[in-house]
C-alpha cells in the first residue's frame, strides 16, 4: 500500500471514479487535460480573491503593496482592527455603518416579501379580469433599474419635511427615505420571484384543503403560505443582498455621516476620495462587508439558483 506510487495512482483513480456509473472511462491523458483546463479556470477565479485576502493582512503603515506574496511580511490583523474602529475620516464607527446597512436591508427585504406574497399568490393561483395587464405592469416596473426613477424619487421625497429649524426632518435625507426608494424597486421583484415559486407548489394541496372544508383564505394561510416559507426566506435574502450592496440611492439621498451605509464608506476608501487610505484597510473593509452575506448566499445557493430559473425565466 505504501511504497508503490503507480499502484497508488491506480487505486486513487479507482476510488475517485467508481461512483461515476457506467459509461466510457476517461483516459488518463484526457483526465489530465481537463484537470489542467479546469484548474486554470479555478486559478483565475481565486487569484483576485487570494490577493485581496493577502492585502488585508498587510501592516497598516504599508500604504500600497510592493510585491505579490500570499502572507506578507509583518502580517497582522491590524487593518481589521483599525477598520472596525473607524473606517473613514468621518466620525462613524464600523458598527454604526453596519447597523445602518442592516436595518435598511432587513426592513426593506421583510416588507417586500410580506406585502409581495399576497399579490404573488393572486397572480399565481387566481384568475380574474385584468390579470394579464397587471402582470405586465409589474414586469415592466421590474425591468426598470432603480437609477431610472431616481430623479422623481429624489425631488418628491425631498418635499416631505416635518418640523423646522434644527429639528427639521427631511424624508429624503434619512434612511427611511432611502428605504422607501429601495422598496419601490424591491416590491415588484419580490412579487415576480414569489409568483415563480408559488407556481411550483401543487394546486392539489389547496384543493384537498377546500374539500376538507377550508375556506379559500384558510387554504392560503394554512396550506400554501407555510409551504412557501423557504421561498419567502430566499426571496427576502435576495432583496437583503441587493440592498446591502445598494449605492446609488443612498449616495444621492444621504448627507449626514451618522446615516451612512457600508457601501458609501467603501466609496470613500477608493477612487478620488481615497487619498492615502492604505489598501490593507480597504481590503479588510471589503472582506468584512462581503463575507457574512457571501457565506449565507453559499448556504442558500442551491435554492437561489433554482428560484432564478423558475421565477426569472419561466415567467
Amino acid at each position, binding site marked *: 500500500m505504501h511504497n508503490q506510487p503507480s499502484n497508488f495512482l491506480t487505486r486513487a483513480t479507482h476510488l475517485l471514479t467508481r461512483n461515476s456509473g457506467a459509461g466510457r472511462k476517461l483516459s488518463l491523458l484526457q483526465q489530465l487535460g*481537463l484537470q489542467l483546463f479546469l484548474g486554470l479556470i479555478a486559478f483565475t477565479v481565486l487569484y483576485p480573491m487570494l490577493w485581496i485576502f493577502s492585502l488585508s493582512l498587510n501592516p497598516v503603515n504599508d500604504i500600497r503593496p510592493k510585491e505579490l506574496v500570499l502572507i506578507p511580511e509583518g502580517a497582522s490583523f491590524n487593518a481589521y482592527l483599525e477598520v472596525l474602529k473607524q473606517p473613514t475620516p468621518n466620525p462613524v464607527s464600523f458598527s454604526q455603518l453596519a447597523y445602518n446597512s442592516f436595518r435598511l436591508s432587513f426592513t426593506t427585504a421583510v416588507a417586500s416579501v410580506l406585502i409581495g406574497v399576497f399579490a404573488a399568490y393572486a397572480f399565481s393561483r387566481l384568475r380574474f379580469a385584468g390579470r394579464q395587464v397587471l402582470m405586465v405592469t409589474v414586469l415592466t416596473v421590474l425591468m426598470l*433599474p432603480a437609477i431610472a426613477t431616481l430623479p422623481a424619487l429624489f425631488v418628491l421625497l425631498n*418635499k416631505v419635511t416635518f418640523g423646522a429649524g434644527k429639528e427639521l426632518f427631511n424624508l429624503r435625507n434619512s434612511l427611511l427615505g432611502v428605504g422607501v426608494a429601495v422598496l419601490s424597486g424591491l416590491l415588484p421583484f419580490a412579487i415576480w420571484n414569489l409568483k415563480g415559486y408559488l407556481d411550483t407548489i401543487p394546486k392539489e394541496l389547496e384543493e384537498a384543503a377546500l374539500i376538507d372544508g377550508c375556506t379559500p383564505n384558510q387554504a392560503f394561510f394554512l396550506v400554501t403560505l407555510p409551504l412557501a416559507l423557504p421561498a419567502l426566506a430566499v426571496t427576502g435574502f435576495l432583496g437583503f443582498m441587493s440592498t446591502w450592496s445598494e449605492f446609488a440611492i443612498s449616495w444621492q439621498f444621504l448627507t449626514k455621516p451618522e446615516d451612512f451605509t457600508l457601501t458609501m464608506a467603501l*466609496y470613500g476608501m477608493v*477612487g478620488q476620495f481615497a487619498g492615502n487610505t492604505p489598501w490593507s484597510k480597504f481590503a479588510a473593509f471589503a472582506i468584512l462587508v462581503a463575507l457574512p452575506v457571501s457565506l449565507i448566499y453559499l448556504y442558500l445557493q442551491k435554492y437561489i439558483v433554482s428560484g432564478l430559473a423558475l421565477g426569472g425565466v419561466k415567467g
Partner: protein
Amino acid sequence: MAEKTIGVFDSAAGGKSVVKKVTPFLYLLPAFIIMGVITFYPMGYQVWMSFTDYGIKNIRVDAPLPDFVGLKNYINILTTNLGLSSFNFWRTLAFNLWWTFSNVIFHVVFGIIIAVALNTEGLWFKRLYRVIYIIPIIIPQIIIANVFRNFFDPDYGALNQGMQLVGALFHLPPEMFHIRWIAQLDYPFPNIPLTLSYFALLITNIWLGWPFMTIIATGALQSIPKELFEAAEIDGATGWQKFWRITLPLIRPAMVPAAVYGIVVTFNLFTLIFFLSAGGPLRQTEILLTVAFRLVNEQRAYGVAAAFSIYVFLILLGLTLLTNYISKATESYDA
C-alpha cells in the same frame, strides 16, 4: 379527480360569486396601493418632469414650479447639448449595446464549455471545482468592482505584478507589463475605438458572468438522457458531432432565456462601470445608466435626467421585446 379539475375558489364558496370576484383584488390591494404611491406616482411625475426645466431651484418645499419647456430636454439629449464634457448620446448608446452583446457572448460560450468539461463522467475533484466556481456569484458586485479597480492598478495591482512575475521567467523586462489599464487613452487596437478600460471591464465582467451560465447549462446537461449519447456512439458519432448534434440543441431552451436575462442585466451594469472605470477615460466607457446618475448626482439637472431616464426606459423596452421576439422565433425550431 382525473377529469374534473376543481378551481381553487369554485367548490366551497358555492354561490357567493361576488366574494369570488372581489377576493383576488383584496390580495392585490396591499402591494398595489404601496406601488401606486412609491412606484407608479413617481413614474408619472417623472414623465411630467421630463417636459420641464426642473433643477436645483425647484427642489425646496416652497419653491416655485419649474417652467414647461416642451421637448427641449429630449432634443438636447439627442443633440448632445447637456454640459457634460466629452459626452455624446449616440456614442454612449452604441457603446452600451456593444458592451452588452460582447459580454453576453463570452458568458454563454465560456459557460457552456466549462459546464461540458465539468460534467465529464469520471472527472476528479468535481465538487471542489463547483465550490470555487460559485465564488463570483456569491460576492456582492460592488465589492468585486472595487477590488478589481485596485487589481488593475498599473503600479500596485495584482494583474500587472503577476504578469511581471510570469514575464521574468521568459526574461521579459517588467516595464513591458506596466499597463495603464484604466487611464490609458490610446486605443490598444488603433482601428477599433475601444479603450483599455473597456477590456479591463470586459475581463472583470467575464470573470463575474460565466458561472451563472455554467450553472444554467449544467442543469440542462444533466437532464439529457444518457441513452442519446450511447445511441450516437453506436452509430459512430465523434465527440464533436455529439456536442453539436445532441448537447447544444438540447441545452438551448435553457440557455436562450438565460442569455436574455444576461442581456438586460449587462445593459444596466451600473455598479461595475461606476466603480471600476468610472466611465473613463473621457467617458469612453460610460453607459446610459452611469450618465443618468451623473445628471442627477453631479449636474442636478432633474428635468433633463427625467427625460434621459425615459429614453433609457424606451430603449430597454425595445431591447427586451427584440430579444424576446428572437428567442421565441428560435423556439419553433425545436418542434
